[in-house]
C-alpha cells in the first residue's frame, strides 16, 4: 500500500510539473509565432526586397547611339547589325576540338587562341567568351554551315556604329571605339551607362556630342541562382536610342571637296554667309573611321600614322597657315575704314621696295607700275600692300582682322583640337617674344606672311563676313531646332546689328562694297589672278582672292632661278590658297581652299572653286527646300 501511495504521490508530482512545463511551452510557442509575425508580416517588404535583390540581377546592354545625318537627312553616322561569335564554355563538349575547328574556319591566330583559353579559365562556365567581334558575311555563312559541329558556339547579333561615307566625314565626326579606363571615369554619363563592349566617341563630334548621342542602356533582368547563373529572363526594358543630330553639311559638296583634294594635302570649307551653316568641311587626306570600331590593326594604324600627308590632322581647324594674299581684302578694308587710302590712292610698283636697307619683293619681278586698290587686289600686287600696311600700321590692321574672326576659334565648343591661330600686333610681340615690333614686319604682315597664322575655316569665315556686307555671323555645323530661311537669316542679321552694334563689322558700308568689287575684279577681269577660274554665267559668278603662302624664305638665288613647281622639293613648295564667295550678284556662300605645297593659289586652288561653286549653287534651291527638318524621313 505504501508503494501504491508513493506511486500516487509521484504521479501527482509528475502531473504538476508537467503542467508548469506546458505553460512554459505555450509561452515559447507564442514567442516563436511573434517572431514569425515580425519577420513575415511586419518586415515582409524589407525581406521581399532582399530576396529580389538576391535573385534578380540586371544586365545593362550597350546603348544605341543616335544617328548623325547631313542637311538632307542622309545618314552619315548610323548603326549596323553586326554578328559576333560567342563561346559558352558550359555548353562546349570538347573545348580543344572546338578551338581547332574555329581556328581553321576563322583563321584565328595562335595569340588569339591563347587569349581565349586564358579567358575561359578566368570566367564562369556560363559567361560567354567573345571569339570574334565582327564576323564578315562569309565567315558568318561558314560558321552557320558548320554550326552542328560547333557545340557551344553562338552567333550573336549586336548593334555597331557605322560610317557609310567612310573617310568622307572623319574629321568632322571623329569615330567611336572602346574607351579606356580614364575615359570612362572622366565622363559622368559614360561612367553611368558603361558596359563592356560599349564604344564611345573618341574624336570630333562623336566625342563632344557624346551626351546627346549616347542613348540609354537596354536592361535585361534575369533571375539568377546563388552562383550567379542566369536562370530565366524576367524583363527586357528597351533602351532609348541617342538623339538624332542633323548637321549643316551637304554630302554632295563634301564628296566633291574630297574628290578635288584627292591625293593632295589640304582643306576645303564652304559656309553659308548669312546663317553661318558649314556646308562642307573637308581635310585631306582623311582615313576610314570604320577601321577603329573593333580596334585597328597595327599595320593599318602605322599606314595612317606614317602617311607624309598627315591624315590624322584636321587641317581645316588645326592646320595653321600663313594666309598669304588672301589677307589683302582685310588689309584693304582696314585701310579704307581708317581713311588711310581711298579708291584713287595709287602706288608705283617696280617689283620691289626697299625699307631700311631691306628689300621687299613683289611676286611680279617686273612690277605692276602705278596701281590703284582695285588693280592691286586684282593682280595681287605686293608692293601696293606693303605701302598700305606701312601707312596703316599693324595695330590698326590687327583690330580689323580680329573683328573678322582671325586669331579666334570658330567652332571651338565642338572640336577640342581646333587652333586659335594668331594675328600679331606690337603688344603681342613685346609680350610674347620680348622684342619691339619692326616696321618691316608690318610690311610682310600686309601680304599675309610673317607671324600671322590662320586656319582655313577662319579664312572662310572672314570671306563670308566680307560677302554678307560686313556682319558678324556665328558659324555652325549643327542644325538648330529651327533653321532660318535665307530671308529670315538676312532680316535677323540686320535686326541684330541694330540691337548689338558690334555685329556690324564696318563703319561705312561703302568700304565693304569697294573690297567686294576689288575681289570681283580679281576673278572676273582680265589680268585677275583667278581670271582663268571665273564663271561668266551670273548665276554662278563668284568673287575671290588667291593666296600663295611661302613656307620658307626665298633666297636670292632661288629667286633668280625661278624654278618650276616640280623642281622644288615638296616640303619647300608654297601653299596654295583661295578664298571666294558667290554668286556675286546675290551672294550666299563663301569658301576657302588650301592645298598644302600646291604652288600658286591661282593655279592650284582657284580652279577648285569653280567646280565647287557650280555644285553649291546648283544645290542652293534644294537646300532652301530642305530647311524644314520635318520633311525629312530618316
Amino acid at each position, binding site marked *: 500500500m505504501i508503494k501504491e501511495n508513493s506511486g500516487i504521490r509521484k504521479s501527482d508530482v*509528475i502531473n504538476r510539473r*508537467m503542467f508548469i*512545463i506546458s505553460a512554459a511551452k505555450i509561452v515559447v*510557442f507564442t514567442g516563436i509565432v511573434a*517572431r514569425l509575425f515580425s519577420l513575415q508580416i511586419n518586415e*515582409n517588404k524589407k*525581406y521581399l526586397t*532582399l530576396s529580389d535583390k538576391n535573385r534578380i540581377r540586371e544586365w545593362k546592354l550597350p546603348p544605341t547611339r543616335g544617328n548623325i545625318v547631313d542637311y538632307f537627312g542622309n545618314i552619315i553616322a548610323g548603326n549596323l547589325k553586326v554578328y559576333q561569335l560567342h563561346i559558352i564554355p558550359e555548353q562546349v563538349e570538347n573545348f580543344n576540338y572546338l578551338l581547332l575547328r574555329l581556328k581553321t574556319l576563322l583563321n584565328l591566330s595562335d595569340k588569339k587562341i591563347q587569349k581565349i583559353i586564358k579567358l575561359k579559365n578566368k570566367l564562369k562556365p556560363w559567361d560567354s567568351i567573345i571569339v570574334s567581334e565582327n564576323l564578315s558575311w562569309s565567315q558568318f555563312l561558314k560558321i552557320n554551315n558548320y554550326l552542328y559541329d560547333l557545340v557551344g558556339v553562338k552567333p550573336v547579333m549586336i548593334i555597331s556604329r557605322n560610317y557609310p561615307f567612310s573617310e568622307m566625314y572623319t574629321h568632322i565626326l571623329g569615330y567611336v571605339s572602346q574607351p579606356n579606363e580614364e575615359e570612362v571615369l572622366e565622363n559622368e554619363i559614360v561612367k553611368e551607362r558603361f558596359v563592356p563592349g560599349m564604344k564611345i566617341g573618341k574624336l570630333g563630334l562623336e566625342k563632344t556630342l557624346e551626351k546627346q548621342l549616347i542613348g540609354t542602356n537596354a536592361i535585361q533582368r534575369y*533571375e539568377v541562382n546563388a552562383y550567379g547563373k542566369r536562370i530565366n529572363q524576367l524583363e527586357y526594358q528597351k533602351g532609348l536610342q541617342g538623339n538624332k543630330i542633323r548637321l549643316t553639311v551637304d554630302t554632295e559638296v563634301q564628296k566633291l571637296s574630297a574628290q578635288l583634294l584627292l591625293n593632295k594635302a589640304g582643306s576645303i570649307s564652304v559656309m553659308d554667309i548669312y546663317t553661318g551653316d558649314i556646308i562642307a568641311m573637308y581635310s585631306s587626306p582623311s582615313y576610314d573611321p570604320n577601321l577603329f570600331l573593333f580596334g585597328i590593326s597595327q599595320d593599318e594604324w602605322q599606314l595612317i600614322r606614317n602617311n607624309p600627308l598627315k591624315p590624322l590632322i584636321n587641317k581645316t581647324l588645326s592646320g595653321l597657315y600663313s594666309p598669304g594674299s588672301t589677307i589683302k581684302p582685310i588689309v584693304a578694308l582696314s585701310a579704307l575704314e581708317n581713311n588711310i587710302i581711298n579708291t584713287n590712292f595709287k602706288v608705283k610698283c617696280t617689283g620691289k621696295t626697299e625699307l631700311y636697307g631691306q628689300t621687299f619683293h613683289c611676286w611680279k619681278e617686273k612690277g605692276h607700275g602705278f596701281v590703284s586698290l582695285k588693280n592691286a587686289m586684282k593682280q595681287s600686287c605686293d608692293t601696293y600692300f606693303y605701302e598700305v600696311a606701312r601707312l596703316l600700321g599693324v595695330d590698326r590692321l590687327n583690330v580689323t582682322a580680329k573683328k573678322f574672326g582671325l586669331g579666334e576659334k570658330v567652332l571651338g565648343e565642338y572640336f577640342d583640337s581646333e587652333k586659335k591661330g594668331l594675328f600679331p600686333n606690337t603688344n603681342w610681340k613685346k609680350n610674347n617674344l620680348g622684342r619691339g615690333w619692326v616696321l618691316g614686319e608690318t610690311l610682310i604682315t600686309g601680304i599675309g606672311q610673317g607671324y600671322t597664322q590662320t586656319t582655313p575655316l577662319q579664312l572662310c569665315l572672314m570671306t563670308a563676313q566680307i560677302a554678307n556686307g560686313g556682319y558678324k555671323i556665328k558659324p555652325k555645323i549643327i542644325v538648330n531646332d529651327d533653321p532660318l530661311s535665307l530671308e529670315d537669316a538676312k532680316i535677323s542679321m540686320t535686326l541684330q546689328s541694330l540691337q548689338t552694334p558690334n555685329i556690324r563689322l564696318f563703319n561705312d558700308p561703302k568700304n565693304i562694297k569697294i573690297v567686294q568689287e576689288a575681289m570681283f575684279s580679281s576673278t572676273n577681269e582680265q589680268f585677275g589672278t583667278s581670271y582663268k577660274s571665273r564663271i561668266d554665267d551670273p548665276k554662278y559668278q563668284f568673287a575671290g582672292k588667291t593666296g600663295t603662302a611661302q613656307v620658307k624664305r626665298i633666297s636670292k638665288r632661288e629667286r633668280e632661278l625661278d624654278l618650276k613647281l616640280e623642281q622644288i622639293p615638296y616640303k619647300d613648295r608654297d601653299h596654295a590658297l583661295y578664298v571666294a564667295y558667290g554668286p556675286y550678284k546675290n551672294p550666299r556662300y563663301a569658301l576657302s581652299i588650301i592645298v598644302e605645297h600646291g604652288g600658286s593659289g591661282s593655279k592650284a586652288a582657284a580652279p577648285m572653286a569653280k567646280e565647287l561653286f557650280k555644285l553649291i549653287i546648283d544645290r542652293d534651291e534644294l537646300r532652301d527646300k530642305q530647311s524644314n527638318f520635318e520633311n525629312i524621313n530618316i
Partner: protein
Amino acid sequence: MFQRDSLNSELSFLQKIKEIDYTLLICIILLSIISLLVMYSTDGGEILYHTKSHFSKLVVFFPLMLFIAFFNIRYWHTFAYLFYFLVILLLLYVSFFGLKASGSQRWMDLYLFVLQPSELMKIAVILCLAKYYHRIKTENVNTLTSIMLVLTIIIIPIIFVISQPDLGTSVLIALSGLIILWLGGVKVKYFVYSFITFLISLPFIISFLKPYQKLRILTFLDPDRDPLGAGYQIIQSKIAIGSGGLDGKGFLKGTQSYLDFLPEKHTDFIFTLFSEEFGFIGSVGLLILYTIIIFRIIRIGAISRSNFSKLFCFGFAFSIFIYIVVNLSMVLGLLPIVGSPLPIMSYGGSSMLATMIGFGIVLSAKINHRQTIA
C-alpha cells in the same frame, strides 16, 4: 487484485486497434505528407533523390511505428536499460569506426541507410531515466547518490556526442534527460543552483568550444559581421522566411530555395523553405499541427496509469517541443546555429527513426494506458 489483473491482461488485437489514438495518428500522417511535399519542393519540383529517399524512409519507419505501438509498453520498461546500453555501445563504435563527414564522425553505415546513434540516444535517455524514476522511491529522488547516478546516465552519452563533435545533439540529449529529472521530482532549488552555476561557468565553457562553434555564436550575435561567410545561412534564412509574407510565395515557388540561396534546405533549414512557400499562415498551421501532436502525447501521459508511461510521454513530448523550438529559433535567427533537425520534416533517417520509435512507444502507452507496470 482481480481488477488489477484484468487491467494488466493482454488486450486482443481488435481492442488494441480500438484503443489507438487516431488524432495523433492522423497528425503524424499529415505531417509525413507535408514533409514529402516539402522534400519534393527542395528537389526543385521533381521527384529526385531526396524525395525518393524520404519517401522510402517513411515507408519503412511508419509501419515500424505501428509495429511498436502494438507491443506492450511493458517490454519497453523491461528493456529500457538494455536499449540505453546498446545505444551507448553504438556511440562507442561510432567514435572508433564511424563514418566521417564534414569534420565530424557520427555515422555508421548499415548498408541500407546510414545510422546516427546520437539521434537514438535522444529516445534512449528518456526511456532509461523514465524507468529509473518509475522504480525509485519518492523519498530517494533527491538523495545525492540518485542525482549523481542520473547525471552520469546523461553525461556519458553527451561526452561521446560532444567528441564527435556534435554540440546540437548533445544539448538536445541533455535537455531530454534534464526534463525527466524535473518530472521525476528533483528539487527546484537544485535546478536553480545549477542554472546559476551554468551561467557563471559559461565563459569557461565557451573557452572550450571549437573555433567554428565560437564563430557560430559570434555570427548569431551579429550575422552581418560576415554576410558571405558564417552569417550567410542566418541572413539567407531570414530573407527566405521574411519574404514569404502572409500567404507565402506558393508551392514550388520559393525563390530562395529554388535558386540555391538557402543552405542545407533539406535538413536543418527545411522550415525556412516551408515558410517561404506557405508564409505566415502555413508556418502557424505547421506549428499548430506540432502543438496538437505534443498535447496529444501529453494527454496520453496524463491518462496513463503507470508512471513509466507518464514519464516517457511527458519527456518525449517535451523533447519534441525542444527540437522544434531549437530548430525554429535557429532558422528565425533567435539562437545560434546548432545542427538540430525538425522532427519528421527534416531529411535524415536516424532522426526520423528515433521520432517514429518515440511515437510508437507513445501509441503503445495509449493502447495500454490502463495498465500499471510493477
